[in-house]
């Protein structure tokens, strides 16, 4: 009889989760809505929508449009602000059950520091995920996380302060490695790969600027190959860094691809919006894959597809 039992548990830089399938930031509601739609104790973890220092009403509607195998969305980080979040939403989340990761976002170093400070010592907050996709209000750049200098500064400040593990959500892009290296060196316990890429779509019926072209971010299956590429590139550059895949994961096969490409766990966004049981179905599919391969932990799948020596950069 084997001493070692099969377990889905994974370690993300100090945070141990019961399964490697989380719900991604902005796709899990406010703590109340998932009850009854999915067995919450079987969900590996929840990332909240991004919380900012002050309340934000968010973007005007429409906030969503479809594109081929994807959606373009812009919520404008609608959220009640950190104080209201801690007072009202956090308790609901804690009651809901799964390990909670609070996503924080801002446009200045000070805002990140204040957010981290406010969450300091809050029970039930298992980790902090830093959303780096917003504009940089200090340096007047369109995206904070596109620049090594600011990523180092902000991730560094949050990581030094935080008592819980810090996940840095690295924006996608042509080459994520320098940003990923900066976040890792600054002290992130885990990297979430990747933030959604900027996108635009015209209304399918009117094809005009009425009610307004949807400038936003692309999510869903369409981005899966971009996410996987970011994953293998970073996994090769940082073989020991825990990586969290986010982008286009809808099925167990997608999740297994991400693990094989170097992820320790995955986040499910749009797929959970469409089917709230997806995180549980995917976790079950990973168990089946482990059985099929006679493995006992998802960590054993990690990076198998890139174990081979790196190929030459394609051109």
């Amino acid at each position, binding site marked *: 009889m084997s001493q070692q039992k099969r377990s889905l548990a994974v370690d993300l830089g100090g945070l141990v989760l019961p399964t490697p399938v989380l719900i991604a930031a902005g796709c899990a*509601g406010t703590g109340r809505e998932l009850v009854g739609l999915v067995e919450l104790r079987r969900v590996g973890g929840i990332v909240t929508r991004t919380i900012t220092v002050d309340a934000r009403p968010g*973007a005007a*509607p429409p*906030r*969503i449009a479809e594109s081929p*195998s994807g959606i373009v969305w812009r919520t404008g980080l609608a959220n009640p602000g950190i104080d209201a979040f801690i007072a009202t939403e956090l308790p609901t989340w804690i009651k809901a059950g799964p390990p909670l990761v609070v996503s924080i976002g801002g446009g200045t170093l000070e805002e990140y520091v204040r957010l981290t400070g406010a969450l300091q010592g809050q029970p039930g907050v298992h980790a902090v995920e830093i959303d780096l996709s917003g504009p940089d209000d200090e340096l007047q750049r369109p995206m904070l996380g596109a620049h090594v200098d600011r990523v180092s500064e902000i991730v560094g400040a949050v990581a030094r302060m935080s008592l819980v593990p810090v996940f840095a959500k690295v924006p996608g892009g042509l080459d994520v490695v320098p940003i990923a290296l900066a976040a890792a060196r600054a002290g992130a316990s885990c990297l979430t790969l990747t933030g959604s890429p900027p996108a635009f779509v015209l209304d399918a019926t*009117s094809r*005009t600027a009425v*009610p307004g072209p949807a400038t936003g971010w692309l999510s869903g299956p369409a981005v899966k190959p971009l996410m996987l590429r970011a994953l293998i590139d970073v996994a090769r550059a940082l073989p020991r860094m825990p990586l969290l895949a986010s982008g286009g994961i809808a099925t167990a096969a997608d999740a297994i691809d991400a693990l094989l490409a170097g992820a320790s766990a995955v986040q499910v966004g749009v797929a959970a919006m469409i089917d709230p049981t997806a995180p549980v179905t995917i976790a079950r599919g990973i168990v089946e894959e482990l059985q099929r391969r006679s493995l006992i932990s998802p960590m054993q799948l990690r990076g198998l597809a890139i174990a081979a020596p790196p190929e030459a950069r394609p051109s």
Partner: protein
Amino acid sequence: MKRVRAEILSTRTLGAYRSLTLVAPELAERARPGQFVAVAMPTDRDFILRRHLTIHQSSRRGGWAGTLEFVVDPTAGPGTAWLSELRAHELLDTIGPLGKPFAYPKRLTNCLLVGEGRSVAGLYFLAQELLARGKRVDMVIGGATMEAVFKPIEAKRLSQLVTVMTDDGTLGERGSIIEALPEAVQRCGAEVVYAAGRPAVLRAVATLCRTRKIPAQVAVEERMGCGYGLCGTCAVPMALKDGSGWDHARACVDGPVFNPARILWDRWPAAAAGADPNPDGVRGAS
């Protein structure tokens, strides 16, 4: 709210529309007028979100007990086109009933129901429930053409007075339901107005009812990513109840039925003056 794999009992064509009746006792039992269901699309398509469909009928008793009916415009896009081609016995991954329903008036009696195209479908369900509560029902309905007016005979059966408007005058009067509103409110002695549909119609109802001091409820159809409160994409700008400012409500869980007096129309681009979400005339069959 339940999630079921519901079998299609029957389908039929109604003018420009297609109706699907599902066997879904768990949903039918709970469904109330104004609520909707969210139906999953097949997994190998290039469009991925659930489609949201207003409940047209939900039968708790009688020969149709345990069934639920919705109506689609087959020309709207790929999702409704797919739904329109389904046949009896196929299964639909359906979540519902979703959202806050219309509230019934306690004291007031004369109810005017306003909508155009397929948006009328949910109002007929409301009319039945109002009639069952001894209320008087009148209607203003419309569409681009005669075919696009949803079940005008049913409207007649359910209401005392019906005003029908079509863009081309092929049924009822020529013109939009917005133009017909003031007179209808007057004629019916409307004490409560219910409306469903595009923002421009709902805004017209809101403006009129504010002027005439008539309470109203409107069902919005803001675009939705999920339908059950997860994604925050179904935003409708609303004045806060305590008067302290404004925020976006979520149409799927805080609505789709709202008090139009609280909606901030100028912050809702689709409802802004002159905005027509279907400038290319597609409203024709919607």
